[in-house]
C-alpha cells in the first residue's frame, strides 16, 4: 500500500511541476508574441522607479523622458538650447520677463491640446511637488497665460540660463488631463507630446514606446523602441556582438577591442562626465594646499586612462569640463618626487587618509580608486580604501564627514556652468554632498554671483574662465579625467544622436 502511495505521489509531483513549468513558458511566449513593424532594441543598464519629470535618480530615466515628453527648448549636440515648442521668444529690458509664443495645434498622446495652460500647469506642478527636479524652476516667480499659445514667465532676479533649464530632459510638458486622472500613477503611465508615446512597462524587464504619428517634427523611422534592462556591461556587449540587440549603452572599454573587430557593429562615442576626488579640507592632511597639490602630482593620470580605462578617458585640464565654454586651466603632470617632497614639507608623511569609493556607479570606479590609493601610498600617505557598494550608504558616509577624499563625477545636465560651479564651489554649499570637502573662497563666491547675472556671453565666458583658473590653483580636488561614453550599435543604424551633458542617446532621428 505504501509503495503504491509513493509511486502515486511521486508521479503527481513530477506531473504538476512539468505542467507548472509548461504553462509558464506558454504564457510568457504568448505575451511576447512580436507584432510587425520596425523595432529598435536598446539595452539599458539600470532601471528606474518611474518616469515622472519631477524626480530623477538616473541618467537612463532622462533618456526615456526625452522620448516621451517634449519641452519649450531642446539641446543641440553641443548643449546649446534652441527653440522646440517655442516659435517666438522675447525678453524684457531688465531681463526678468520672458514672453514665449508656442507652436499651435500640438496634441498630447491622449489627444488633448498642448497649450500655454498646460505649460503653466507643468511648471507649477513641479514647484508644488516634492521631487528633486523642482530646482529647475525655483527661479520662476510667476507664470501668466496670455492666450492659447502665449506664455509670460517672470523670474526672481536675473537668470540668463533660463532657456537651458527649459531644455533640460526633466522640463517635459505633461498632460494636465492625464496627470489629474492618474495622480500618483502618472509616473508609471506617462503622457506627453514627444516623438514616442508610452506603451508598456514590464518591471524589471523592459519598457516599450511606440511612434507618435501626430508628432509635428520629423517622423521617426522606428515604429517601436524596446528598452531592455540588462545591468551587466559585459552582457550588454556580448548581446550586441552576437546580434541579439540593436543598441547597447554604457559599455565597458575593455569590451571594445572585440566589438571594434566585428564589422557588424559600430561604436559611437561622446565625451561625458568629469571624474575627480573631492578632498576634505576641513581636516588634515588636506587642509594644507601643499598636500592637495601633491596629491595631484602623485597620480599618473595618463597611465590610468591608458591601462585601466583602455583609453576611454582623457586627463582633466580643468574642473568640470562638460559645460559650455570650458577652458584649459592647467595640467598637473605626473611628478612623484615633487609629490613626495611637498608632502614632506607639509609634514604629512604617513598621514592617514580614508578614501571612499563607490562601486559600479562610475565606470571602473573601484579599480581607479585602488590605483589612486597605490600612487598616494608611494608618495608617502597611509591610505585606506573603503568601497561602499550602494549609493545611499555612500551619501550617508560622506554627509557624516568620515572621509578624507571621495570619488565623484559631474556631468552637467544643463550644460550651464552656474549650476555646476555653484553647487560644488560656493561656500554656501560647503558641507553639502557636492561640496562636502568644504571648499570656501570668497573671490570665487563673488565671481559665481556675477556670472549668474551676466547676460553678455563673452563677459560670462571670461568670468567662468577666471573661476576655473583660481580653483585649479586651489586644488580642492584631485582632478582625474573626463570619461568617454561608448555606445555600440548595429552598423547599419545611422543618426543616433548623443547628448553630451547627460551622456544620453536619443533615437527619433535614427534609421536603417
Amino acid at each position, binding site marked *: 500500500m505504501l509503495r503504491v502511495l509513493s509511486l502515486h505521489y511521486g508521479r503527481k509531483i513530477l506531473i504538476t511541476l512539468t505542467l507548472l513549468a509548461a504553462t509558464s513558458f506558454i504564457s510568457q511566449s504568448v505575451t511576447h508574441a512580436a507584432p510587425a513593424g520596425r523595432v529598435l532594441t536598446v539595452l539599458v543598464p539600470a532601471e528606474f522607479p518611474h518616469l515622472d519629470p519631477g524626480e530623477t535618480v538616473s541618467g537612463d530615466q532622462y533618456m526615456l523622458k526625452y522620448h516621451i515628453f517634449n519641452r519649450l527648448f531642446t539641446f543641440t549636440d553641443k548643449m546649446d538650447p534652441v527653440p522646440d515648442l517655442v516659435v517666438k521668444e522675447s525678453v524684457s529690458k531688465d531681463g526678468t520677463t520672458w514672453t514665449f509664443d508656442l507652436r499651435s495645434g500640438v496634441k498630447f498622446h491622449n489627444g488633448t491640446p498642448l497649450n500655454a495652460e498646460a505649460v503653466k500647469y507643468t511648471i507649477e506642478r513641479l514647484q508644488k511637488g516634492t521631487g528633486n527636479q523642482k530646482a529647475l524652476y525655483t527661479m520662476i516667480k510667476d507664470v501668466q497665460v496670455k492666450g492659447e499659445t502665449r506664455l509670460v514667465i517672470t523670474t526672481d532676479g536675473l537668470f540668463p540660463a533660463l532657456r537651458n533649464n527649459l531644455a533640460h530632459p526633466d522640463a517635459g510638458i505633461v498632460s494636465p488631463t492625464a496627470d489629474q486622472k492618474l495622480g500618483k500613477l502618472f509616473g508609471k503611465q506617462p503622457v506627453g507630446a514627444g516623438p514616442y508615446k508610452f506603451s508598456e512597462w514590464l518591471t524589471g524587464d523592459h519598457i516599450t514606446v511606440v511612434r507618435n504619428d501626430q508628432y509635428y517634427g520629423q517622423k521617426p523611422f522606428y515604429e517601436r523602441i524596446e528598452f531592455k534592462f540588462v545591468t*551587466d*556591461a*559585459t552582457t550588454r*556587449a*556580448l548581446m550586441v556582438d552576437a546580434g541579439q540587440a540593436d543598441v547597447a549603452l554604457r559599455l*565597458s572599454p*575593455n*569590451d571594445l*577591442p*572585440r566589438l571594434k573587430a566585428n564589422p557588424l557593429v559600430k561604436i559611437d562615442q561622446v565625451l561625458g562626465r568629469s571624474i575627480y576626488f573631492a578632498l576634505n579640507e576641513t581636516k588634515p592632511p588636506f587642509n594644507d594646499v601643499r598636500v592637495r597639490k601633491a596629491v595631484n602630482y602623485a597620480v*599618473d593620470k595618463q*597611465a*590610468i586612462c591608458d*591601462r*585601466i580605462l583602455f583609453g576611454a578617458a582623457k586627463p582633466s585640464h580643468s574642473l568640470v569640463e562638460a559645460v559650455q565654454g570650458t577652458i584649459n586651466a592647467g595640467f598637473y603632470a605626473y611628478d612623484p618626487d615633487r609629490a613626495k617632497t611637498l608632502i614632506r614639507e607639509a609634514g604629512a608623511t604617513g598621514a592617514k587618509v580614508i578614501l571612499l*569609493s563607490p*562601486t*559600479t556607479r562610475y565606470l*571602473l570606479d*573601484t*579599480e581607479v*580608486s*585602488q*590605483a589612486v*590609493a*597605490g600612487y598616494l601610498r608611494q608618495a608617502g600617505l597611509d591610505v585606506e*580604501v*573603503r*568601497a*561602499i*557598494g550602494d549609493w545611499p*550608504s555612500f551619501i550617508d558616509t560622506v554627509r557624516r564627514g568620515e572621509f578624507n577624499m571621495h570619488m565623484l563625477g559631474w556631468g552637467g545636465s544643463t550644460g550651464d556652468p552656474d549650476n555646476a560651479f555653484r553647487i560644488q564651489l560656493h561656500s554656501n554649499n560647503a558641507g553639502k554632498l557636492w561640496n562636502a570637502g568644504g571648499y570656501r573662497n570668497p573671490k570665487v563666491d563673488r565671481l559665481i554671483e556675477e556670472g549668474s547675472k551676466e547676460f553678455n556671453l563673452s563677459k560670462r565666458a571670461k568670468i567662468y574662465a577666471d573661476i576655473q583658473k583660481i580653483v585649479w590653483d586651489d586644488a580642492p580636488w584631485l582632478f582625474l579625467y573626463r570619461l568617454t561614453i561608448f555606445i555600440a550599435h548595429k552598423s547599419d543604424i545611422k543618426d543616433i544622436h548623443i547628448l553630451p551633458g547627460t551622456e544620453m542617446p536619443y533615437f527619433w532621428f535614427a534609421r536603417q
Partner: protein
Amino acid sequence: MPWSVRFGLAVIGLLGLVAVCGPLFPLPDPYAQNIVNALQLPSAMHWLGTDSLGRDLLSRIVAGSRFSLLIGFGAVAVGLAIGLPFGLLAGYYGGLVDTIFARVIDILLAFPGIVLALAVVAITGPGIGNLILAVGLRTIPVFARVSRAETLALRQRDFVEAARALGCRPYEVMYWHILPNIVGPLMIVASLQTATAILIGATLSFLGVGVSPEVPEWGAMLNAGRPYMMGHPHLVLVPGCTLMIAMMALNIMGDYLRDRLDPRFLINRD
C-alpha cells in the same frame, strides 16, 4: 583509502599549508600594483599573469586561500560555539526549553541562506569580520539541530542512564558522556558546512558586498575579473577553478566521513 579521498586530503593539506605559510613563499606582494603591467598573460615573471591593476595573480590566489579558509573555519566556529551548546541543552532537558529552542531554530531556518547573509551584511557593512558573522549565522541552526537530534537519541541510552544514576551532574554527563559521542556526526556536518560557508562568502563577495576590493578573496577576484572576461579569461578561470577544486576536496572529505561514520545522514546536507 580510495584515490578520490587521497586527492581530497592532498588538496586540503596544500590549502592549509599555503594559507599558513603563504607569506613565506618568495612571491610578489599580492597588494603591489603596477598599472603599466596590467592584464598580462602568464609569463616567466608572473606564473599566472597579472590582474587589472598589475598585481600578480598567483600571489593573490595564494593569499586568497587564507581568506577563504578563514571564512570557512570562522563560520563553522561560530556555528559550533553557539549551535552546539544550544542543541545539547535542548536535547538534554527537553520540555519547555526544547520547544522554545525549536521555534527559534525554525525562525532562523526560515531565511534562505543568501538572503539572511545579505541582510546581515547590509546592516553591519562590509569587512571580513562581518562576513564571517553573516555566514556563521546560517550555520548555527544546522549545528544546533544536529546536536539536538543526537543528544535526544543518546539520552535514552543505557550508559547515560547509568551515569546519571551514579550521581553525575548534568554538565558532567553532557561533557564526558554525550559530547564525545556526537563528535562524529558533528565532524561530518562541519566539513560540509565549511564548503557551504566558503561558497556563500564567495557569492557575497561576488555580489560586491563581502570584502574590501583590494582583498584577494577568490569570489571578489572573480567579480573583479568579470568585465575583462572576454579578452582575458584567465582572470575568471583561475579563481573559479581554485574555488571549485577546494570545494570538491571538502565535499569528498565530508562524504567519506559520512560513509564511514554515519550512513543515516543522507538528507541533512543543509
